[in-house]
């Protein structure tokens, strides 16, 4: 097809790098508050009715929100097949943990209130808590590991290999820096969940959400700064040392990479990217203040701004790297050598440009229909409530 030649490969690659960011951020902004509400559930709801109020704030929307994640997976597969292949199998057991959590969560939403009984409902509340907290933590841990480099190799056939014992590999993912990144992630999403609950509930649930959410906000603020300092002084960065193959074939082994220096050199090369961490910190700080003051709508927006800043700061710091290898740096995946073909990137871009506006439009419409507080009376009168 000649059409796909309209946009050059390097431009398509950058566009798809941005779209990957859009999807991950879209996921964090929407499904993020579901995960946050799950993680907050045992603390904001003391009685069954209070928990049902919290659950029903996300009840009608979690399914759509979760699609951001599914779509993120699909888009990585379609646009960045080597990234999909290396990361999903490299983080095998961690991915399984996320998977188990994400399987339990929908089922818990749907089934929890279909039976009475203390044990039944408590069991599902536990599933919702785990299903929210575990992915929120693991996503951060994964980012922490990506920043340090992941121990994978590529052989001549570009087959991803992971030398070493599987259990030791799994445990070594839980290193201190990665755990710190995990804390940033879970505290940020708990703050986000609290901002959502502040908007959608009233009374004791809202009060508790605000109290816990503002603590989570402070934790997110402090740990994000700590992680930044650690990244500047304690973590080695990566750099392409050969000619940058921006229009070349997607073969990571065709370029050479050095593991050394600092990630933060990106900020001297492209000073404008400093805006991302600044927005991140600003958003978190103002959302925390908003939670304390009890402002409803603006707090959720500020929380979104904070998450946007934090996630983009990681992407922009690493650019053009998307998955560096700690044991064979030349195999590192970058924007320039880990994408799909020009044809596929082009087709997928066209499809995305058609459907993404539609998705945003109908998602907005659904949120509008469901606008307003979730109240005890409403839950008790609606037979479909969770």
């Amino acid at each position, binding site marked *: 097809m000649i059409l796909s030649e309209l946009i050059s490969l390097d431009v398509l690659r950058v566009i798809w790098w941005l779209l990957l960011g859009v999807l991950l951020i879209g996921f964090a902004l929407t499904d993020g508050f579901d995960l946050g509400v799950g993680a907050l559930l045992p603390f904001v709801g003391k009685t069954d009715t209070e928990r049902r109020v919290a659950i029903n704030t996300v009840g009608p929307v979690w399914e759509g929100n979760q699609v951001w994640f*599914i779509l993120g*997976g699909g888009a990585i*597969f379609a646009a960045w097949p*080597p990234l999909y292949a290396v990361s999903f199998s490299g983080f095998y*057991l961690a991915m399984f943990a996320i998977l188990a959590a994400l399987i339990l969560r929908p089922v818990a939403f749907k089934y929890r209130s279909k039976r009475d009984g203390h044990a039944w409902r408590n069991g599902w509340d536990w599933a919702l808590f785990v299903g929210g907290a575990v992915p929120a933590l693991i996503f951060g841990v994964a980012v922490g590991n990506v920043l340090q480099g992941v121990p994978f190799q590529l052989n001549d056939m570009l087959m991803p290999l992971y030398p070493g014992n599987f259990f030791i590999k799994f445990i070594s993912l839980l290193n201190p820096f990665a755990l710190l990144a995990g804390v940033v992630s879970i505290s940020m999403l708990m703050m986000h969940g609290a901002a959502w609950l502040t908007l959608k509930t009233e009374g004791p649930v809202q009060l508790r959400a605000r109290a816990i959410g503002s603590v989570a906000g402070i934790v997110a603020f402090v740990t994000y700064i700590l992680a930044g300092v650690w990244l500047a002084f304690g973590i080695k960065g990566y750099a392409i040392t050969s000619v940058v193959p921006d229009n070349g074939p997607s073969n990571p082994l065709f370029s050479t990479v050095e593991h050394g220096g600092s990630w933060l050199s990106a900020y001297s090369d492209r000073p404008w990217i400093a805006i991302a961490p600044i927005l991140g910190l600003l958003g978190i700080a103002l959302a925390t203040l908003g939670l304390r003051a009890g402002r409803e709508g603006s707090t959720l927006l500020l929380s979104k701004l904070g998450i946007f800043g934090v996630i983009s700061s990681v992407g922009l710091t690493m650019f053009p790297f998307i998955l560096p290898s700690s044991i064979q740096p030349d195999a590192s995946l970058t924007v320039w050598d880990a994408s799909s073909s020009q044809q596929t990137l082009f087709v*997928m871009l066209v499809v995305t440009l058609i459907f993404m506006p539609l*998705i945003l439009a109908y998602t907005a419409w*659904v949120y509008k229909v469901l606008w307003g507080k979730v109240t005890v009376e409403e839950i008790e009168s609606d037979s479909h409530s969770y």
Partner: protein
Amino acid sequence: MDIGIVDLSRLQFAMTVMYHFLFVPLTLGLSIIVAIMETVYVMTNRPIWRQMTKFWATLFGINFVLGVATGITMEFQFGMNWSYYSHYVGDIFGAPLAIEGLMAFFMEATFVGLMFFGWDKLSPVKHMVVTWLVAIGSNFSALWILIANGWMQNPVGAAFNPLTMRMEMTSFFDVVFNPVAQAKFVHTVSAGYVTAAVFVMGVSAWYMLKGRHFELARRSIAVAAAFGLASALSVVILGDESGYETTHNQKMKLAAMEAMWDTEPAPASFTLFGIPDQEARETKYAVHIPWAMGLIGTRSLTGQIEGINQLVEGSEERIKKGIIAYDDLLKIREAKGDVSPEVKAQFEENVGDLGYAYLLMRYVDDPRTATQEQIEQAANDTVPTVWPIFWSFRIMVALGFSFIAVMAYFFFISNWRGMRYPRWALHAAVWIIPTPWIAAELGWFTAEFGRQPWTVDGVLPTALSVSHLSVGDLLITLAGFVALYTVLFIIEMGLMIKFIKKGPYQDVELTQDWQQRHEDRLSGRSSSVTMPAE
């Protein structure tokens, strides 16, 4: 290549995908049946149809959520367990999966919440549109998934790139309009419709036998029978189309389905019954129907269908050509593409058989060093185990035809005998509830097991497609999936049964009230009631 890893990965994939497909067919069909019922409600404004919509939607919801949850596993598992597959064909295979998310799943998942929570927030027409969007979304999901699967059976619109060591898309149009994918799509969704029709019919029949919810049950059977009859016909017709496509694209699979060891003079006979013996390469106690296979498979009296032994000889040739392609591939990769036109031309000529050279990697690291004996072994590996395919295919076909008979019978009674279903028929309707699931699973088994030893037919062997994991990894996840899925299955069945036993619980008074007035009107008593002046 560790064969233990390959087998465990296959086991896990088979288990999780077959489990996923316990929920998918019902979602596909029930979403449409519910939408039809709601449309009748909007058109007639009769509360009974609203009650039916809400009741079946409740069962739909219990089923839907597990379909969604177990679908996430499928999307992740390619990367987790089949990383070389993901790398090697992700350029093509990833696209339909991503489009499924963008075009279908997003719509279905966004509106399903509103379908349950929006009854009081939307006008009846708007709510009906929402329900239809859920149904259309589910069915479009199936379209893109089957385009992806169809490509694994018949890899069109793609070419191998030696520099990136993978297949790359050459024509999106060819991938989407792959005839195998299109036939499979209609066949699969129709099977889902039959599943839902049998389910609705069985549950309703049980109510009638118990003397409960009579009005809801008999109307539901009428809808299910009409919808089910059309679908059952479509399943068989498109199943035949799928078989016809297989004749051209997957000759080995067809030969295995028919346990046809040697090429027969055209038109070939169809083996109705027999016990395939893989070792001796013959089918014992075979009962043949003359001409039938040639007619179905080639739609002609002269078209030949190749037998397994002849196809194995062909595989041997293709392996040898694949070795030439492999040798050239190494040269091209070494020189980063900068090789003489002769090497390029020779590579282009043989690259279609590169996948056959990979079959040797079970026996040697470098296919170029393979002995004649190893080449013969690898050629024999292109024959899947015949008897499971032979039998699952036959049971599926028999069930498929019997659904037509069942649906036609109920359709007849509901339209020409005033919905007075005999008790024996109602009993039968309850007992056959599991059969469409059996047929669907066997159908998938035939399609996927019959494709072995390939993940992508002729392009990438299954043994090469796996991730570099350890047995420990796989045992942990296998145990995890078994535990999680078993618990969820028990819970799901428990809830299904609970809500079926409970019966319709929404709008009960409204419906009864309407029912009373409706019956009065029919029996003529309404004439004594003074109507308000109009």
